[in-house]
């Protein structure tokens, strides 16, 4: 079965409510049975949770043998079997390992051998001594900005074993907070900075007008670069999947669904939606064309604009072309975005004459000048005048973590803190450089210490970082321009990584510590980022494999070497912390008018569910603002939607003007001087969470000729002499990857799609410019920031060329451990 077939069939069956029962790991591989340390007496079935949802794990003879979804999950993810396999995969990190040159030559020795896979096994004591002495050495030698502790990534769910917090807790308590932190994220960096100027709030992580209201009231549902059927499989806490029944309910109404995306994504296929195969990177132009039509045909809601927005009159001369000589007509837009002008005008009329919800994903802000995309979307929604009406307006989180699922009346778990309450504010570090950088600037920081950078109205200096400590993330997947990153990493003296699998990030480290997976320890977590409809006991499934240890215990031991063990642990063990979180949450129950069991009874039951009040099924985002904009002002300077921002005007950034603007990106399809003929669509994978689960047998369900799939239109494939299943090389000036061709008309011509999150597998390892034999698409993307305003990543900005690969394709070897690992 090809990846394409698997994807389509499995997503359909998920939506029909079929369950995902693990079949991949029924028989544990021989190497595992021989080497793993398993405890007897744990047999049976336990409940636990993950980013993919709540599930039961069955253990037989000390080995995890089966996984089945919780019966309360309305649409279990087909990825569940991959979770089980990840724990027992050949890519497990078994022992503490140190890069040979580092061990023999000391910090900074032969940095070019990072990534070459030459590791030496050491004891835990040796490893921890080494880590503690490096933390002290770098801190004493280079001062408070020598260590980067801004670890970022999708660490496993759980309120206690939050490895990123635990790491910062170690650095706050053991090193007096002497580390450089990071702010923002790779998902929504541009939007979470621009939206507060426009709407006064983050938007991207906030409750949407709830689905029951949308099903009831929305006539036209637009998914603008959003694919909720695919992306709602996962959540930051534990996924509830509550959106899926509502997606089905909306489909059952037969109302109009429009998907604007360069490929006919899974949501388009699910709804059999009208597909608008826009040219990538041109969404702002299309929005402007629609906006111009609304204005030209007097279809815009001037009452709404007067009452609830500020600065439309300053934007209008740009829209009409009065200020720059270019009216943003449907024809103008069509030239750029390749949507026919008549269709653009039809969209304007359709949106205006119906209750329309403009639901947008985040990809269109994860690109050069990405700040403009959602600003223009809000401007368009303001011209339609339906913000705050049931089922109208816009939404930036319907595709994420089941946004729009009604919220329960629940108690909320606290979690382990980063220990920063005990250290002074960060401002004391500013002489040596910024104490916190926008997260995606990490490579730029390492390569340019002392250089000024702009960020949201401030100018700061990049600190001179010598050591990176990374936990709970795989930056050698999520960061852009891989070869620039390899170069930057060679400048570091010391790199420490905790993980449970040999990701590329672990391979590019000096000291690698084997952490437990989330299924080898106890924890606790909320279920449903938005619904919060349960609390799950994340019970340990099996004992830690090989020499894996919990991050909590690793950092406690490091803190002991730094003289801060007691402050770190507060004298509590795993279960004491978990019980403490539960008890703190339980104290909220009386105020919410609910009763909850005592901890022991909860833990025994494994899950505690909450009721969803009727009023929460009626929530309309910005309903209160629409009712009374004076008493419920937005968090903007005017209290209104800011179509023109004086605050941004004052920043004076060339690359982020004070009203939404079509800005040519550094490269795009159809752009002037475009050097390569294909846009590379780097959308999220269907069968992974970013790079998580790439190192599992799940990969066999979608890989093509052993590589990450590359969707290509039949017309392009024919022109390039590529047929389905071919190994292809995709390349540009930044890098080159191999992939497996999937020829399909589900993607528009001139665009190829390689999902992000494929494990980076350079041959030879560690060499700048090496051929990636599996297909990490971030070899091809640009490493620049979105603009001076947000400095987000541009993971969707990439042009490249593709060819049938005629050479001898090396087999990927990133999915097993390095030689001595």
């Amino acid at each position, binding site marked *: 079965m090809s990846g394409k077939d698997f994807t389509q069939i499995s997503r359909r069956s998920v939506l029909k409510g079929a369950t995902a029962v693990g079949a991949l790991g029924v028989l544990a591989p021989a190497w595992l049975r021989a080497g793993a340390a398993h405890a007897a007496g744990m047999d049976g079935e336990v409940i636990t949770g993950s980013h993919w949802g709540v599930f039961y794990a069955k253990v037989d003879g000390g080995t995890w043998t089966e996984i089945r979804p919780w019966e309360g999950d309305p649409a279990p993810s087909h990825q569940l079997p991959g979770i089980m396999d990840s724990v027992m995969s050949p890519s497990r990190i078994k022992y503490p390992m140190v890069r040979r040159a580092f061990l023999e030559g000391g910090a900074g020795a032969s940095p070019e051998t990072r990534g070459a896979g030459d590791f030496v096994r050491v004891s835990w004591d040796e490893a921890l001594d080494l880590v503690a002495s490096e933390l002290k050495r770098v801190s004493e030698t280079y001062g408070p900005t020598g260590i980067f502790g801004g670890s970022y990534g999708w660490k496993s769910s759980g309120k206690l074993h939050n490895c990123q917090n635990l790491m910062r807790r170690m650095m706050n308590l053991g090193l007096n907070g002497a580390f450089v932190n990071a*702010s923002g994220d790779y998902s929504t960096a541009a939007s979470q900075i621009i939206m507060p100027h426009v709407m006064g709030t983050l938007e991207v992580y906030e409750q949407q007008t709830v689905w029951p209201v949308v099903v009831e009231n929305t006539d036209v549902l637009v998914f603008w670069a959003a694919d909720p059927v695919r992306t709602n499989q996962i959540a930051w806490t534990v996924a509830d999947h509550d959106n899926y029944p509502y997606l089905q309910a909306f489909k059952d109404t037969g109302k109009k669904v429009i998907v604007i995306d360069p490929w006919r994504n899974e949501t388009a296929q699910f709804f059999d939606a009208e597909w608008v195969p826009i040219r990538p990177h041109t969404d702002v132009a299309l929005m402007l064309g629609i906006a111009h039509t609304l204005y030209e045909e007097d279809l815009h809601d001037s009452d709404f604009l007067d009452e609830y927005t500020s600065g439309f009159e300053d934007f209008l001369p740009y829209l009409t072309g009065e200020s720059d000589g270019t009216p943003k007509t449907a024809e103008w837009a069509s030239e750029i975005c390749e949507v026919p002008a008549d269709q653009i005008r039809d969209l304007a009329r359709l949106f205006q004459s119906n209750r329309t919800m403009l639901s947008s994903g985040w990809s269109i802000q994860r690109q050069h000048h990405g700040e403009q995309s959602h600003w223009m979307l809000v401007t368009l929604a303001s011209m339609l005048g339906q913000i705050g009406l049931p089922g109208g307006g816009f939404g930036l989180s319907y595709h994420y973590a089941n946004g729009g699922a009604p919220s329960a009346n629940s108690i909320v778990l606290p979690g382990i803190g980063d220990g920063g309450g005990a250290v*002074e504010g960060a401002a004391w570090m500013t002489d040596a450089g910024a104490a916190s950088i926008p997260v995606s600037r990490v490579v730029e920081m390492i390569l340019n210490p002392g250089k000024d950078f702009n960020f949201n109205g*401030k100018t700061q200096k990049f600190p001179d970082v010598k050591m990176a400590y990374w936990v709970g993330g795989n930056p050698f997947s999520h960061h852009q321009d891989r070869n620039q990153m390899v170069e930057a990493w060679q400048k570091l003296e010391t790199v420490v990584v905790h993980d449970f699998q040999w990701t590329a990030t672990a391979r590019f480290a000096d000291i690698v510590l084997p952490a437990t997976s989330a299924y080898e320890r106890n924890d606790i977590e909320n279920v449903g980022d938005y619904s919060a409809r349960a609390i799950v006991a994340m019970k340990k499934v099996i004992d830690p494999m090989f020499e894996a240890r919990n991050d909590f215990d690793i950092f406690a031991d490091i803190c002991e070497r730094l003289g801060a063990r007691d402050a770190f642990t507060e004298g509590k063990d795993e279960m004491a912390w978990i019980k403490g979180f539960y008890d703190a*949450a339980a104290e909220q129950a009386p105020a919410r008018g609910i009763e909850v069991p005592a901890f022991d009874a909860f833990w025994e039951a494994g899950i505690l569910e909450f009721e969803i009040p009727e009023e929460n099924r009626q929530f309309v985002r910005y309903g209160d603002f629409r009712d009374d904009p004076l008493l419920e002002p937005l968090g903007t300077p005017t209290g209104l939607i800011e179509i023109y921002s004086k605050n941004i005007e004052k920043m004076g950034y060339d690359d982020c003007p004070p009203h939404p603007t079509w800005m040519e990106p550094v490269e795009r399809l159809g752009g002037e001087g475009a050097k390569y003929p294909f846009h590379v669509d780097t959308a999220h994978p269907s069968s992974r969470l970013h790079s998580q689960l790439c190192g599992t047998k799940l990969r066999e369900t979608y890989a093509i000729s052993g590589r990450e799939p590359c969707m290509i239109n039949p017309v392009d494939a024919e022109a390039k002499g590529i047929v389905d299943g071919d190994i292809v090389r995709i390349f540009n000036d930044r890098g080159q990857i191999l992939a497996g061709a999937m020829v399909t008309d589900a993607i528009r011509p001139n665009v190829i799609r390689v999902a992000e999150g494929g494990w980076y597998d350079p041959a030879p390892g560690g060499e700048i410019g090496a051929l990636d034999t599996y297909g990490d698409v971030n070899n091809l993307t640009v490493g620049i920031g979105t603009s001076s305003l947000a400095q987000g990543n541009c993971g969707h900005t990439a042009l490249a060329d593709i060819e049938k690969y005629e050479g001898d394709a090396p087999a990927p070897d990133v999915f097993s451990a390095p030689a001595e690992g």
Partner: protein
Amino acid sequence: MSGELNSTHGPAARLRGWVSALWGLVFSLIPVLPATADPVFLAEPAPLLATVDTRSVTIAELGIAAAVETLASDGAYRQVAVTGWARPGAERVLFAWPGKQVIVARLPRAQTGRLVPVARETDPDTGTDWVEMRLEGWVAEAALRPSRTPIWEAAWALFATSCTACHERRVPENYTANQWRSYLKVMGPRTGLPEESQALILAFLQRHASDTIHIEEARP
């Protein structure tokens, strides 16, 4: 960064941070405040009463960290004056500064007649009109502190613990006072903290925001 914040987070304060659990005790030991011309500050949301009488009409709900001027004292209650800025048409909410949504007082609709306008201003950036209003009434001594320092100590401890469980600690002055109000509307309930604790964190963040920190620093 303000002297006030440094004194909150500086090395000396770090020691005090370890005993933050004792703040409740510290509060209970605070002596009766002398009635002077210096402003005093709300440590918790408290009703502003028309008279010293438990059955008195509530004129307004005063916000955490709001500054009030002492007019008279009567045992457990103090007569105070509070001023804040309102949008014409929205006099039920008084803010600390024009255009900055740092709430000083909220009034029931029926009580807005007690407001006395003392100044007017048009915010040059937004073109919005603002009226400074003065309001007098009685507030419980127990809700007042002679400085904001203990209020910020308590707020910092909560913020640093509760607001790092799901994401990295945000820098207060990276956001505006108005943005903080909107963020806390969404993020506050996710902490599971009681509403008063959420309001305390909000007051701290809003008064250490990018567009207020310098005003607070200049405060006498």
